[in-house]
């Protein structure tokens, strides 16, 4: 049997095995015993990153330029360290918004923009096509090399023939078939493919295993271990320099730019986004992947340099393609079955990449490129679209692989594997700015993203794609050497005269600078639409509770429940749509609306989300807006709704304020009421007190009058004494009544004040004249130290005289007869004048010093005190206060008392009519 048939049958058996693995995984998933729900499978599926390019190409690259193969591994390792920050957020956003592709992610972030989704998809197709071509080339070359060299001795007859047959075409078709079988068996809203993921993980094991076997064989089979191999290599100068940076084209700059590209590629390549984000079952798997994936890459790297060096040593002069060393070395070592295993490893690397990439891209192309066009052209108004979408995707996969084949035929032969792959990496790196800025900066706008992407891709296609076309001879070489139209500053590998970097670094530098620059500048000056603002907020704040939602405001038009259900069922089938809607309604505790009734806005938003899962955010938006009658709200509309909401909030805040004011008013009323009650109580008490005070002299008068009447035989002296008492009590009664009236007048503000310039000295002397009799009666001495000048003030003369008389009569009242002394002193300052009345009577206890000015407060100290009314000092205080002065008492018990009042010179009392209390 010829090797051809063996290889063919083994290839098909292997692919069959893969399919069995996938089928088993799907079967387990259906049983609810999912295989993919663990971090190891997740990590192995991420290893789809290692394609045939890695498998064959990194050895080729190491053989030519030494350690320059390392960035392809270093980048992802660095990125894995950042996953906890980036990937976790991206996955959370994708899950929340049911995002199923990188194009959808960007479109959704920037206001569910169909243009952006289409653009990204287009760029992905253009950018990643070379990559698919690369895989086809790798598989085809490996097949040809394997079959050729298995039949002839390696190195015996020179290099293998150029690829003349259509191996690559058959490979493309077989891979397309596989991708279709794996990825488009049914339309799943989450776009998760457990079978595919399991098969990919399995393939990752196979390719790693095969590579390690080759490495071990080469190192220990063909050489005596690492030491021997490296010693032999070091002996040759051209190999020794491979182990230093000298061999790296572009030096450190290139090394770093490639590390950067690999960092971006491991997340933003369509297939990486598919396995990392879309196929992610549980976010906790990231934790394991973050260390296990770098470990996998390390294992893969272990033998890259040894194999490359071995190839260079063994095939020194044969002119063999270094990319084939992995395959040719075992054949050289007469290990045909090992070579076959190696071939299977390469096949694994290629098929896994192509399958995942094709599926991811078919989702994108159908959801973000073709469906929106169909919808716009109203082609899609058929009843069952889910079937149509599946066929569409199958067609797309086939088309993509055909395109890849075409690219391979036209371009691929002129390039090494690695350089083709890097062109793709540079294309994919353009998605990094809109995504990374988009998830951390709310201000990034749709127009900014479009502008940035356009700028980035323009630079990319100019500096890499067109340049590679020129290198392939597609376009005139002068494009490279003299720039387009002879404009030297547009030379694709020295833009604006920048010649510092190698072509790749140069391209990465300018495209990323242009991309970020345009994105940031446009965003800064742009106004975001309502959808954009809401999406930006939902993306950036995905971890904040309550950040989700808000976009239901955007659906203000009318759509009936029946229409909405029908719409949904067209894309996901009637049964599924009923289940989904009922689940949603039940989970949220809403009432189920009538079929004829209007679908509530949140349900429309739910339907949109559900459709987003099936056909992407941009298409879902187009579909829903075509169904919802009435204009989609513009920013003003949304703002109006938000305004209404805020008005309601404001209204309730006003209500709250009102109720607080009411509370305050109520409190004030209560206080006022309490004050009134207090006043009422005081008034009652006053009346009661007054009545008591009036009744007391009346009692004496009545009693003695009756005694006099009933005792005609009374002695004359007694009669005279009693009559005297009656007269005194009557006088007191009169005084009391007068003072009560005075007080009432002062307190109610009805007292009339007669203002004039008066002299306090003459006032004091007049008061002394009026009370002279009292002093004489009791033989109390009055000492008056009169100043020689008048002490003028503005006041009511009669009222002030009343005060002084009152103080003098009080003083004499509390003095002991015969030994009593009352002194009166005048005092003055430029602003004030005052009098002090000092007696040497019984004094006032300290606790009563203030109380003596209270109404009806009489200091009860002795029984033989002259009769007072208890109102005199109260009236004095009122009069002094009316003059804006002050009056107080000082005393030591038993040593007499001093009463002092001070009046301002220029501040007489005002007549007032309002009630003071």
């Amino acid at each position, binding site marked *: 049997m010829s090797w051809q048939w063996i290889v063919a049958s083994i290839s098909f058996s292997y692919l069959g095995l893969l399919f069995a693995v996938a089928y088993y995984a799907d079967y387990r998933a259906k049983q609810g015993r999912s295989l993919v729900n663990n971090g190891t499978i997740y990590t192995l599926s991420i290893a789809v990153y290692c394609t045939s390019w890695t498998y064959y190409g990194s050895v080729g690259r190491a053989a030519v330029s030494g350690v320059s193969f390392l960035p392809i591994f270093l980048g992802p390792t660095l990125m894995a360290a950042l996953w906890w920050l980036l990937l976790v957020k991206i996955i959370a956003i994708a899950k929340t918004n049911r995002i199923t592709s990188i194009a959808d992610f960007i479109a959704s972030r920037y206001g569910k923009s169909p243009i952006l989704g289409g653009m990204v998809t287009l760029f992905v197709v253009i950018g990643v096509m070379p990559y698919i071509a690369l895989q086809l080339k790798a598989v085809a070359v490996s097949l040809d090399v394997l079959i050729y060299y298995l039949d002839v001795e390696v190195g015996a007859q020179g290099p293998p023939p150029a690829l003349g047959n259509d191996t690559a075409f058959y490979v493309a078709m077989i891979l397309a078939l596989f991708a279709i079988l794996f990825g488009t068996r049914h339309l799943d809203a989450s776009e998760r493919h457990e079978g595919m993921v399991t098969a990919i993980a399995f393939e990752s094991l196979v390719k790693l295993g095969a590579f390690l076997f080759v490495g071990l064989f080469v190192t220990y089979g063909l050489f005596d271990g690492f030491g021997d191999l490296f010693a032999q290599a070091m002996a040759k100068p051209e190999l020794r320099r491979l182990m230093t940076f000298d061999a790296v084209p572009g030096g450190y700059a290139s090394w770093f730019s490639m590390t950067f590209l690999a960092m971006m590629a491991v997340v933003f390549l369509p297939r990486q986004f598919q396995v990392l984000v879309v196929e992610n079952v549980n976010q906790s798997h990231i934790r394991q992947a973050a260390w296990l994936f770098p470990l996998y890459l390390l294992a893969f790297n272990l033998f890259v340099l040894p194999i490359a060096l071995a190839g260079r040593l063994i095939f020194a002069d044969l002119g063999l393609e270094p990319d084939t060393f992995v395959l040719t070395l075992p054949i050289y070592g007469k290990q045909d079955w090992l070579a076959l295993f190696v071939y299977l490893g390469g096949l694994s690397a290629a098929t896994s990449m192509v399958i995942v990439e094709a599926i991811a891209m078919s989702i994108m192309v159908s959801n973000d490129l073709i469906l929106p066009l169909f919808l716009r052209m109203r082609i899609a108004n058929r009843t069952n679209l889910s079937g149509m979408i599946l066929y569409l995707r199958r067609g797309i996969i086939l088309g993509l692989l055909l395109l890849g084949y075409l690219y391979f035929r036209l371009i691929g032969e002129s390039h090494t594997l690695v350089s083709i792959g890097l062109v793709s990496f540079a294309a994919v790196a353009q998605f990094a700015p809109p995504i990374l800025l988009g998830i951390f900066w709310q201000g990034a706008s749709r127009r900014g993203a479009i502008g940035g992407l356009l700028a980035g891709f323009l630079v990319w296609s100019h500096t890499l794609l067109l340049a590679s076309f020129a290198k392939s001879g597609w376009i005139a070489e002068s494009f490279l050497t003299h720039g387009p139209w002879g404009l030297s500053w547009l030379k694709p590998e020295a833009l604006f005269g920048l010649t510092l970097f190698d072509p790749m670094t140069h391209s990465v530098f300018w495209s990323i600078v242009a991309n970020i620059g345009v994105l940031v500048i446009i965003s800064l000056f742009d106004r975001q639409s309502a959808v954009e603002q809401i999406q930006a907020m939902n993306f950036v704040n995905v971890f904040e509770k309550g950040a989700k939602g808000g976009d239901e405001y955007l659906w203000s038009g009318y759509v009936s429940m029946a229409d909405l259900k029908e719409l949904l069922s067209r894309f996901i089938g009637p049964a599924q749509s009923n289940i989904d809607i009922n689940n949603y309604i039940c989970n949220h505790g809403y009432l189920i609306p009538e079929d004829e009734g209007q679908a509530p806005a949140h349900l429309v938003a739910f339907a949109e989300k559900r459709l987003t899962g099936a056909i992407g955010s941009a298409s879902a938006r187009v579909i829903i807006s075509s169904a919802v009658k009435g204009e989609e709200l513009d920013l003003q509309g949304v703002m109006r709704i938000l305004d209404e909401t805020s008005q309601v909030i404001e209204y309730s805040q006003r209500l709250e304020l009102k109720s607080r004011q009411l509370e305050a008013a109520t409190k004030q009323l209560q206080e006022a009421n309490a004050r009134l009650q207090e006043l009422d109580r005081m008034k009652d008490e006053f009346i009661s007190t007054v009545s*008591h005070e009036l*009744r007391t002299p009346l009692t*004496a*008068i009545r*009693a003695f009058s*009756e*005694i006099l009447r009933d005792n005609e035989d009374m002695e004359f002296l007694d009669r005279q004494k009693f009559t005297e008492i009656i007269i005194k009590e009557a006088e007191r009664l009169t005084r009391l009544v007068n003072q009560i009236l005075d007080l009432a007048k002062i307190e109610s503000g009805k007292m009339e004040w007669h203002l004039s310039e008066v002299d306090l000295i003459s006032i004091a002397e007049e008061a002394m004249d009026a009370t002279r009799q009292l002093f004489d009666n009791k033989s109390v001495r009055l000492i008056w130290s009169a100043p020689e000048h008048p002490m003028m003030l503005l006041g009511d003369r009669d009222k002030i005289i009343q005060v002084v008389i009152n103080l003098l009569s009080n003083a004499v009242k509390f003095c002991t007869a015969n030994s009593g002394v009352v002194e009166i002193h005048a005092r003055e300052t430029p602003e004030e004048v005052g009098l002090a009345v000092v007696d040497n009577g019984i004094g006032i206890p300290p606790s009563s010093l203030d109380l003596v000015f209270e109404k009806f407060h009489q200091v*009860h100290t002795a029984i033989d005190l002259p009769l007072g009314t208890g109102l005199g000092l109260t009236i004095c205080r009122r009069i002094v206060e009316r003059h804006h002065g002050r009056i107080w008492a000082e005393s030591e018990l038993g040593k007499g008392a001093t009463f002092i009042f001070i009046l301002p010179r220029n501040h007489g009392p005002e007549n007032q009519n309002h009630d003071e209390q």
Partner: protein
Amino acid sequence: MPVEILIVDDAPNIVLSLEFLMKKEGFSVRSVVDGDAALEAIKIKRPDLVLLDVMLPKRNGYEVCEAVRANPDWKEVRIIMLTAKGREVEQEKGLALGADDYVTKPFSTKDLVVKVRGLLGLQGD
């Protein structure tokens, strides 16, 4: 043994008139001007009847009345409250605290004497 009367009032002229009236009836009369002095006087010698003003310094008439009634030894002491506050509440309060009668100021001297004699069980004139 003459009837003992204690007069408690802080208005000297009223005390004077009451003393005159009681002495004229042939009673033995003592008088004090505040509540504390009243209780002191009662302690020293138990009177048959107390003419007790309500508005007193230190300890008011109600308190004195209450203190007297709290002591079983003084159960026989008759108390007539004299009040210048004529409101019914005050009269009722006095009676509730154990006073035997009340007289509103200004009072009729005849009525007062009748009440005193009545409480002492001395009928007629």
